[in-house]
């Protein structure tokens, strides 16, 4: 790259635009090629597997040519959702309920905390911010492990509850309770939400809030009429950033319950992927495609919002 660039660079004075473009394009090229090979092609691979068939041993064979795509995997997946032996329908419903509950609870917890730190922490802001960010640096598995320790039958949660006479028998929290899984999801994903909310709330010009106060609004009405509308964008991105990974989560429920009563959509795909001999991988590919199709609209919304702000001023 270097020698060629040098020659182009010397000719700069005569042709001011073109050589520059070439230089910047050359800088971007490795990244573009990387993304093409390892981001675009892999998604084509999902399509090829989904449209492929199985060989004599039941192993899925990819159909790289779109003209050879078959609907075998699609109809198999369709039967999983609707047919007599369907099992995916209830799982999708459960996933939606869990994720809706978990994201709502996350928002109700994260917003007040982020609001307090952004608005009222004053000189202790750095301390609060460090404490808010700390879970972001703690591995998800470690945080789940922490709750597994606490929720064991002889763990501290049961001990505390029986000390307060709230329960007579120790509760088997890890025995397949949906409640535990939802709580695990909240605990797992809330740091990401809180950070987005904090950044959004912190960006609000204090003058706007003071103006609301000066015009006679009380604290609650200032919040409702000024702060809340101004933080709508942060709420939306924050929810997106937590809901998307929650929908694909397959490990939280495995760790905190591990029973089929709390299976989520991510487990379906993960199980089909690791099915023995890979016989169900075709269906896994179909479900991944469907998952992607459902989420494409919110994802593109996010991309457009981000690229607008990241290119912003220039």
């Amino acid at each position, binding site marked *: 790259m270097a020698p060629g660039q040098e020659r182009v660079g010397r000719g700069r004075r005569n042709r001011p635009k073109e050589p520059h473009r070439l230089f910047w394009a050359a800088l971007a090229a490795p990244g573009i090629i990387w993304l093409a090979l390892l981001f675009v092609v892999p998604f084509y*691979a999902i399509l090829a597997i989904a449209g492929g068939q199985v060989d004599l041993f039941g192993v899925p064979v990819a159909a790289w040519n779109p003209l050879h795509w078959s609907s075998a995997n699609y109809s198999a997946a369709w039967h999983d959702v609707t047919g007599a032996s369907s099992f995916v329908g209830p799982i999708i419903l459960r996933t939606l309920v869990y994720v809706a509950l978990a994201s709502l609870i996350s928002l109700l917890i994260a917003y007040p905390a982020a609001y307090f730190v952004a608005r009222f922490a004053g000189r202790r802001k750095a301390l609060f911010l460090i404490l808010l960010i700390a879970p972001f*640096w703690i591995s998800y598995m470690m945080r789940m492990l922490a709750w597994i320790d606490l929720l064991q039958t002889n763990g501290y949660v049961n001990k505390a509850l029986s000390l307060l006479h709230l329960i007579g028998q120790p509760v088997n929290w890890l025995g397949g309770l949906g409640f535990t899984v939802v709580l695990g999801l909240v605990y797992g994903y809330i740091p990401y939400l809180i950070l987005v909310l904090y950044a959004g709330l912190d960006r609000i010009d204090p003058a706007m809030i003071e103006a609301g106060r000066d015009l006679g609004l009380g604290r609650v009405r200032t919040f409702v009429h000024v702060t809340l509308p101004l933080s709508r964008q942060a709420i939306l991105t924050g929810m997106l950033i937590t809901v998307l990974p929650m929908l694909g989560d397959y490990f939280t429920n495995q760790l905190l319950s591990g029973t089929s009563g709390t299976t989520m959509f991510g487990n379906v795909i993960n199980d089909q992927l690791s099915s023995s001999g890979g016989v169900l991988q075709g269906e896994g590919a179909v479900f991944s495609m469907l998952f992607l199709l459902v989420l494409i609209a919110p994802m593109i919304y996010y991309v457009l919002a981000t*690229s607008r702000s990241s290119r912003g001023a220039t």
Partner: protein
Amino acid sequence: MTTATAKTPAGAGQAQARTSLGRLRPRRNPWRHPWFLEGFTWLYLVWSLVPVALAVLFSFNNGRSQSVWQGFSWRWYFADPVNSVLHDPNLHAAVVQTIRLSVYVTLITVPLGVAFALGINRWRGKTASSANFLMILSFVIPELIFGVAMFFVFTKLFKPIGLGTLAEVLALVTWNVSWPALIVQARLVTIGREYEEAAADLGAAPWQVAYRVLWPLLRPAIFASAVLVFSGVIDDFVLVDLLSSNSGNTPMSVYIYSQQRGGNGGPALNALGTIMLVMTFIIAIIGYIGYRFMTRGERGGRLEALTTIAGGEG
């Protein structure tokens, strides 16, 4: 206050004016400290941090229990000749694999992402903006779907790669390349183009501009993204879970998950989680101090440094 206005009934218009004025006047001091919110925030912090602190504590437990304290010991780290992290070959391998992945991925991702961001930001045009779109899409796509795509591409298309360390590195680089790309682009927006144009007017070629003007200005952003990528790889779970094939290429997060799920939990896993935690905290502290050092003399200060190191700009 309100009773006083009610006591003196006058003309209808006057009364109306008074009530609306009374309605607008805040009943309590609007600048008072929000003790309820502060209490709520502290509760949240206790809930989010104390469980992890207990899990760290139990990694020093002198017994197998993860919920009953049996005294302090180092046995799960190095004292136990069989089951400690130092002596159990699988635990040992998991630590090594995590460190190896973090180093490899950071070394590839950061230059790739920075060059991509610079090129895309200056190049302009259709190719550049669609490549940028793809990059942001890789930031928001659910990790499970991306993992499935990677799984298929390495097992069905790029078969020589297969599953294992190489697949893990390639997938993690693609997954993380958006960090440096987004952070550097955000930084480019705040820098503006004046310095570059001044340098170009003085006769600098584009690579001289990149090296002498942009590189020093971008150094803090590049450093921050390296910190984020490194710690992100330590904490990553889904991709490495799908792409690891044996104990030689299983990093800590996957090892914790599979052991805990298989009913082989124990303080050794807490020890592993604690090692992960210490690693990311050290990286975070280095990142914070380094970022502060590099941006000394700029506006923003420690709060800005904290949010940047936690990825608040992406």
